[in-house]
């Protein structure tokens, strides 16, 4: 009976609604993530169109603020995080030789919370008074004063957090309990390692955000004054609690991309990963340090000199394990038989852009320097280099790397390379000039600006439209790959190594019903 049920593949809508299969859920996550990327991308075009020239021409300032806020929330919680959870769902069981995730029903629930959270987040924009306009950091008193759209957002954040927590518990339970015989922790692929550490970051950080959001809701509706100075509270408390979540969140977005780079670079350099052990320890060190640097986001609120020094030095310390990782990737490529297929281009591009974002991060870590750069476009440039440059590049790298395995078809290599180069050039035109805007003093989150900032803003707008236009190539490529194309081999790439490549392309609905042995 169990076998008969096991062999049953539901079809149509019920297959997706009731699925407990890790591959189906992975696909759902990825499709959801890319739909949200389109929504967030369109919002970024509203922002950039308004900033094409000084003065107000397209939208009113309040709507502009809503766009900057919801664009960030959609991209972080709707695109980047679910995108990597999708990759984890598809890949982790196949990479550790497990038949599925450890808690498949909870896996279904983790995903199906997301569309409802996304609907709440978007619906908030259409409520009386509009959506949240306090920026994604939701600092009170602004966030305490917003209309009902802000409540929609806060509830949505609760749901998104729940989904992430459930997903993380599942990932940890899978990795710790379902590895194939012989696969010790130090034999796991780096993508699995980075996800194990990321899941612990999520477990520790998301409940803190939930605590902060709950306090904000009670301040708004139940008469408490956690963040209300008039009632004896302190708005700076929000900043401390929020950034205790917010800084690890950056690494939640970036570490799985590091895992992707660590899978792809050895494949196309045809060498084993240089310094595997040090990669694991560096990832763990980054995760630990991410919890003791939060106040570098808020130097300007004023804190004792000892606090400023501590957070400055602790932040700078992160450059050490990060440097180890970049060194290892470069050493893996050194004297390798390198080829530059699309996944490799995205991986190298990602390491390059992340390194620039890391360097501007070091500049921002220096307290007296941050007093100049705080809340300027320099910060916008910095975090887009980190989050777009590492996370989104990592996501694209992963999709190109594994889509032949998932679909059984090769993608169009020429179009893939066009997608990469157009995005890379568009991204650079968009975000590199923003460094100069910030250094010259242009504040972030404003719909208008002084005349001298016009030229760099116009570069930025042209780049943004170019970047978004390039993504049509990706959607065309991905859909064409799902529908057909030249057949992919089981191994797909010549230089690969790992359990997922021992399965057929596409893999069977239930992979590894008999656990493989790892030597």
């Amino acid at each position, binding site marked *: 009976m*169990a076998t008969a049920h096991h062999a049953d593949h539901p079809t149509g809508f019920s297959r997706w609604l009731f699925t407990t299969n890790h591959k189906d859920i992975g696909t759902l996550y990825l499709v959801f993530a890319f739909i949200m990327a389109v929504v967030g991308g369109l919002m970024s075009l509203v922002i950039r169109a308004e900033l094409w020239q000084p003065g107000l021409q397209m939208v009113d300032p309040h709507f502009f603020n809503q766009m900057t806020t919801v664009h960030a929330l959609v991209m972080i919680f709707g695109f980047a995080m679910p995108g990597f959870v999708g990759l984890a769902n598809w890949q982790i069981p196949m990479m550790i030789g497990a038949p599925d995730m450890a808690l498949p029903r909870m896996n279904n629930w983790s995903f199906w919370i997301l569309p409802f959270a996304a609907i709440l987040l978007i619906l908030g924009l259409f409520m009386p008074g509009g959506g949240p306009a306090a920026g994604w950091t939701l600092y009170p008193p602004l966030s305490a004063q917003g209309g009902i759209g802000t409540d929609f957002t806060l509830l949505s954040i609760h749901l998104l957090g729940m989904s992430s927590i459930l997903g993380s518990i*599942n990932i940890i339970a899978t990795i710790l*309990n379902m590895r194939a015989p012989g696969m010790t922790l130090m034999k796991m692929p780096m993508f699995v390692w980075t996800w194990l550490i990321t899941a612990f970051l999520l477990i520790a950080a998301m409940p803190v955000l939930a*605590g*902060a959001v709950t306090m904000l809701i009670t301040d708004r509706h139940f008469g408490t004054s956690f963040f209300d100075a008039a009632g004896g509270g302190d708005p700076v408390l929000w900043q401390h609690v929020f950034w205790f979540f917010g800084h690890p969140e950056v690494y939640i977005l970036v570490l799985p991309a590091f895992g992707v780079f660590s899978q792809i670079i050895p494949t196309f350099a045809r060498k084993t990963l240089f310094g595997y052990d040090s990669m694991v320890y560096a990832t763990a060190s980054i995760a630990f340090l991410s919890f003791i640097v939060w106040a570098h986001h808020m130097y300007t609120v004023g804190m004792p000199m000892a606090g400023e020094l501590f957070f400055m030095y602790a932040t700078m310390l992160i450059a050490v394990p990060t440097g180890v990782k970049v060194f290892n990737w470069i050493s893996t490529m050194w004297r390798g038989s390198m080829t530059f297929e699309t996944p490799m281009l995205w991986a190298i591009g990602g390491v390059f852009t992340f390194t620039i974002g890391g360097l501007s991060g070091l500049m921002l870590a220096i307290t007296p320097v941050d007093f100049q750069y705080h809340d300027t476009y320099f910060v916008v440039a910095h975090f887009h280099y980190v989050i777009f440059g590492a996370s989104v590049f990592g996501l694209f790298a992963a999709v190109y790397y594994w889509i032949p395995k998932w679909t059984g078809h090769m993608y169009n290599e020429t179009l893939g390379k066009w997608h990469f180069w157009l995005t890379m050039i568009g991204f650079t035109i968009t975000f590199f000039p923003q460094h100069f805007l910030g250094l010259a003093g242009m504040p972030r989150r404003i719909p208008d600006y002084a005349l001298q900032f016009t030229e760099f803003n116009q570069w930025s707008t042209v780049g943004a439209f170019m970047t978004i236009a390039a993504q049509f190539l990706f959607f065309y490529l991905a859909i064409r790959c799902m529908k057909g194309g030249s057949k992919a081999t089981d191994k797909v790439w010549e230089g690969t190594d790992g359990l997922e490549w021992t399965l057929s392309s596409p893999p069977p609905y239930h992979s590894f019903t008999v656990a493989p042995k790892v030597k």
Partner: protein
Amino acid sequence: MTEKHIDRKQRQRIRLTAGALFVLVTLMFVSAAFLGIGA
């Protein structure tokens, strides 16, 4: 996936891991809330 792919001992370990993680999540949530109340 069905139960037959996972033995009982493994199932117990999975539940133990998930349970311990749920406790950790609750502790983190409560400590954030107490930080607010304490302040």
